[in-house]
């Protein structure tokens, strides 16, 4: 029950992070969006048995988190508790793929375990990249970037509107659920009948709210589009940011830095 409040708190907290002021926060949102996408594609394009080659990619989230002054512990916790789907599906790899792929000492490691571990690494990398993007940029700025990239206006308007009212409606939902639980014996979750009338009433209130908002907007001269006044500029910093990271990603994509370094060390030890 309490996770309704927690979820909207999470959203709000990410926005608070985005209002920070660092070199990375000030960067044009387009640069950060493009770089994040390149990063994700680079990570995902590895074959499914890659492990060591993926590890150097952690440099990107780590540097962004530390330069942007983001709370690493908070982000990590968020990553660890979410989205069990990848891990659930990945769990089958060790069962299905028992071909021994490598040995550590005398213990054989099957391909399934290797690819399972690889899935977890991919998951960590892609998810943190997305979370970092939003906590360095903020949702409204990402929407601004989308407009500049030619995403249709009605859709961007929808995104902005939707985001704005998430907070209002989750608050409303939380109040309703709290009221219902105060009047019920078991407070764990709502009974079906109560649930339907809760949702139904929330829906009716939502429809009324939409009408009120529409009238209020008409009074203020709304003509179907929301205008965003925010100047965006691609200067040399943005170019350096995109090109620098992309070059690094390409380097890491085609050279297994971890393996080479390891070979260097173990080779020299031998």
């Amino acid at each position, binding site marked *: 029950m309490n996770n309704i409040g927690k979820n909207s708190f999470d959203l709000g907290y990410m926005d608070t992070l985005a209002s920070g002021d660092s070199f990375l926060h000030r960067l044009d949102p387009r640069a950060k969006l493009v770089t994040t996408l390149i990063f994700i594609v680079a990570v995902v394009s590895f074959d499914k048995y890659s492990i060591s080659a993926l590890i150097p990619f952690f440099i990107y989230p780590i540097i962004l*988190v530390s330069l942007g002054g983001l709370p690493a512990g908070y982000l990590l916790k968020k990553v660890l508790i979410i989205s069990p789907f990848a891990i659930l599906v990945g769990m089958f790899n060790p069962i299905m793929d028992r071909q021994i792929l490598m040995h550590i000492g005398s213990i054989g490691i099957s391909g399934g375990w290797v690819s399972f571990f690889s899935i977890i690494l991919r998951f960590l990398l892609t998810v943190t990249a997305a979370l970092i993007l939003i906590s360095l940029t903020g949702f409204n700025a990402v929407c601004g970037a989308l407009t500049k990239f030619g995403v249709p206006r009605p859709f961007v308007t929808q995104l902005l509107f939707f985001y704005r009212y998430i907070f209002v409606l989750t608050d409303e939902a939380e109040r309703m659920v709290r009221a219902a639980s105060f009047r019920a014996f078991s407070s764990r*979750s709502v009974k079906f009948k109560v649930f339907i009338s809760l949702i139904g009433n929330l829906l009716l209130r939502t429809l009324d709210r939409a009408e009120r908002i529409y009238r209020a907007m008409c009074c203020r001269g709304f003509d179907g589009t929301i205008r965003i006044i925010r100047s965006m500029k691609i200067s040399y910093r943005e170019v350096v940011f995109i090109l620098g990271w992309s070059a690094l990603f390409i380097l890491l994509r085609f050279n297994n830095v971890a393996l080479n370094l*390891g070979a260097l060390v173990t080779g020299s030890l031998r």
Partner: protein
Amino acid sequence: MHMADALISPAVGGVMWAATAGLIAYSAKKVKDESDDRKVPLMGVLGAFIFAAQMINFSIPATGSSGHLGGGMILSILLGPYAAFLVMASVLIVQALFFADGGLLALGCNIFNMGFFPCFLVYPLIYRKIVGKELTQAKLMLGSLLAAVISLQLGAFSVVLETVASGISELPFRTFVLLMQPIHLAIGIVEGIVTAAVVAFVWKARPEILDSAARGVAMGKVDIKKVLLGLLVVAALTAGALSWFASSNPDGLEWAMLKTSGKEELESHETVHASLAGAQEKTAFLPDYGFKKEESRLGTSVSGFVGGALVLFLAVLFGWIFRRRKK
């Protein structure tokens, strides 16, 4: 049933992105053409409603588990397919960005699985056909129940196809289908009952809302042929472009294609390893370490582990130093 970045290949992600982007552009144009300003705040607020409503759980009697409202169908019923698709897409984008449900690359897959099927296939072909123009409570409930079940089945099947085509997961097609469909049948029935009950609630309290939605101005009718044709063209174009790309890069699409038979996989893995071993030999510190073939694997994996740990350590160290310097 959010698809995750970790499970898809760039080719699959790219194709689904293109398809979804096409659908968004088409829907946005439709919504704009309709030029009903009233719909702008309505869509936004209904998206937030779906978001909030999904956080409320109810207990399913006698099972101990809980269910919640599924979004796509109820949105289609209230808004018509085009606006509903845009709303669904925006909900999924926020979930991907803030809660990392799925991921950015998998976003195309997710919007397609949870938006396209309910809005563009099931709503016009099932719900509208059952409910018709003259509303009755029985028809409304049957229509929304069936529609929710079928759209979830299609969505789940599409997750299976995307996962198998990506070839990251080892689950064979048959097992995966047998795993996903029954689970989502159960979820679908629960979602269907909820959708039907909520629709019935609205019908009882404010029938005019559903009446006007059912009469469906320009919005209600989907030109399904156009949508599908456009989709086909987009898919063909991107698949062509991507396979051309991938052919110069052996571990992209081909990997996925070869996935069905386990053999090629291992062989190509062999070559990957061989090239890695080659790279290792080239860059090794001491020139005289001549591993035999069998041992070189051990060498590779050991260096992999050592190197990985080292790189990770260095990265964390960098991060720590940067942070210290800032303070």
